[in-house]
């Protein structure tokens, strides 16, 4: 007989519950040490039969392996493999997102629950970790667990392995037909119009938005009437502070830049470990575009809208930077 049942049978038993703990503020997207998730009463975290949990985990893991080996999963037209992304990629990236970068997310209500949307963000950080973190943030924080479909440079699809992983994670080539197809089928599309100019800039130029290309992303959104959601990401600039760009070496290797950071290439593969900066991600209010559909080919409208998006991101970046005085703070 367990202790609890024992207690219940005793005379004079009253239904007594400990007063609920005041819900603790989440810090960096996780709960502070020795706290338990707010709103979860003590009784709910009663230790379950440990054998059962492990049995279920093993069974689930084996079933996952079997499905992978038998090819019994679905891939969409773009090669997006939901099962692999949710089962393998996101859990791995989430460790980086939560424990390494201590990411905080603001304004998640600005992301629609359903229907298409075009997220436009600032790009930085030598390697495009910010894009991955943005999709993890969306998956983690959004009530509907939405997936972000990123648009990548064609360089990503030129490289073996990387192209395969990118396709599986739902990335596709940054071109208008793909973007429009995704948006009209109600997906959230993520784009970084700065491209290599953004991620390949020096540390001295951090948080200064680069040129936004020709605004192709705006005309794609206008053509499909999809709202544009500007996103500001703070923290990615400090992960690999780029001190210099070895242009001749980059040309030799056929890449857009060759970074020199305090750790790369001096420490070899260790230099690939990102510095643990503090990340803040802010989703700005969506800019509706339904009423502008017929101006999709008007360069003036497209340019002005792209400029508006750029200004919004730049202002939000400054706001976020004030919230985070120390780049490597808690």
């Amino acid at each position: 007989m367990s202790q609890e049942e024992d207690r219940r049978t005793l005379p004079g038993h009253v239904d007594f519950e400990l007063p609920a703990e005041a819900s603790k503020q989440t810090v960096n997207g996780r709960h502070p040490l020795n706290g338990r998730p707010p709103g979860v009463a003590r009784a709910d975290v009663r230790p379950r039969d440990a054998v059962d949990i492990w049995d279920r985990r093993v069974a689930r893991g084996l079933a996952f392996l079997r499905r992978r080996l038998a090819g019994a999963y679905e891939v969409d037209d773009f090669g997006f493999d939901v099962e692999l992304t949710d089962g393998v990629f996101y859990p791995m990236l989430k460790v980086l997102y939560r424990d390494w970068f201590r990411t905080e997310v603001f304004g998640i209500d600005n992301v629609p629950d359903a229907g298409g949307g075009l997220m436009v963000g600032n790009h930085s950080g030598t390697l495009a970790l910010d894009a991955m973190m943005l999709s993890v943030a969306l998956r983690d924080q959004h009530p509907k667990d939405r997936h972000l479909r990123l648009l990548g440079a064609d360089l990503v699809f030129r490289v073996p392995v990387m192209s395969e992983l990118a396709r599986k994670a739902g990335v596709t080539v940054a071109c208008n037909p793909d973007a429009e197809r995704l948006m009209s089928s109600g997906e959230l599309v993520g784009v970084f119009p700065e491209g290599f100019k953004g991620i390949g800039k020096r540390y001295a130029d951090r948080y200064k938005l680069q040129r936004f290309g020709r605004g192709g992303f705006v005309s794609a959104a206008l053509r499909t009437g999809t709202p544009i959601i500007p996103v500001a990401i703070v923290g990615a600039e400090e992960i690999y502070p780029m001190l210099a760009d070895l242009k001749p070496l980059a040309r030799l290797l056929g890449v857009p830049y060759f970074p020199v950071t305090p750790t790369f290439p001096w420490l070899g593969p260790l230099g690939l470990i990102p510095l643990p900066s503090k990340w803040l991600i802010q989703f700005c209010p969506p800019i509706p575009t339904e009423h502008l559909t017929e101006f999709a080919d008007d360069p003036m409208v497209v340019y002005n809208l792209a400029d508006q998006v750029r200004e919004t991101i730049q202002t939000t970046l400054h706001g976020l930077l004030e919230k985070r005085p120390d780049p490597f703070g808690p």
Partner: protein
Amino acid sequence: MVTGVSRFLGARVAARLTADPRVERVVGLDPHDPPPALASLLTGVEIIRADARAASGAIAELGAEAVVHLAVTSAPDPHAGGRAAMKEQNVIGTMQLLAAAQASRPLRKLVIRSSTAAYGASFKDPAVFTEDTEPRAVPRGSYARDILDIEGYVRGFRRRRPEVDATVLRFAPLISSTADTTLTRYFAQPLVPTVWGRDARLQFVHVEDALEVLHRSVVENHPGTFNVAGAGVLALSQAVRRAGRISVPLLEGTLSSLAAVARNIGIGQIGLDQIDLFVHGRVVDTTRLVNEFGFTPRTTEEAFDDFIQGHANGAAFTADRLAAAENAILEGIRAVRASATAAAGSEKP
């Protein structure tokens, strides 16, 4: 009139048209005698043993109202003259057939077999091709280049004879339990070479659906260019796993040179077209086909399942075996854990 009746698709189309009461007379045009396996299909078909060069005479003499051009080869056959013969048949053959068709007054309909290879393959391509997508560069595969030439001739034909309904059908790779193509032979091997670091998205169309579309485009009027493919996508690795085969990832260069060696000694027919397909993948939008023909081909997945059923032998893994292995491992772990807990329990009573 149907060209290429000595081949798999041509013979079946001719047989289907013969069975249709709306079609008065079916004439097959082919330089070769149909192989015995296909001869039984062609009992009601009049066969003219001639190549496309003789087509002008044949079309004029017969007063054909519809020409179905299927004599397009996708891979060079080393026993029949190799690449030179392939080009002769695909490009020169089409050119001559279209020239003859252009001169024929009673002609009302032209149906051309094309391929999704017409979209080429490049890193910058959109993920899904619509009929209006132009290839970014001239593809390096010989078949794809032939297809582009053929489509070019059809464009010229449309300009000169606008009153003739010209239907161009861009087929995804054909597959079925019985079809025998380069790609089905590739998936039927126990070890399937793939390109390392790439996982192409593939689409297939079931042979029966391809026949249905060809049939409808002859007896109905559907001018234009249409993608013919099964909805949905299989990744190459996924397809290999579903077929229960083992993939052998090779570097792209290694695979190309191996394929070239195999071609030269005449054991394989994997060309640059196939390698490009395995590197880049190819997915097309079939909305236009579904809307115009009112016909939805079975999905890529269903078509591939049919292929797997026809080629079940030789599979290393099957879904049943994997499920059995899964159960065995799970039971094993449970047994070990149970005995471990029992042992721990007996130590501390």
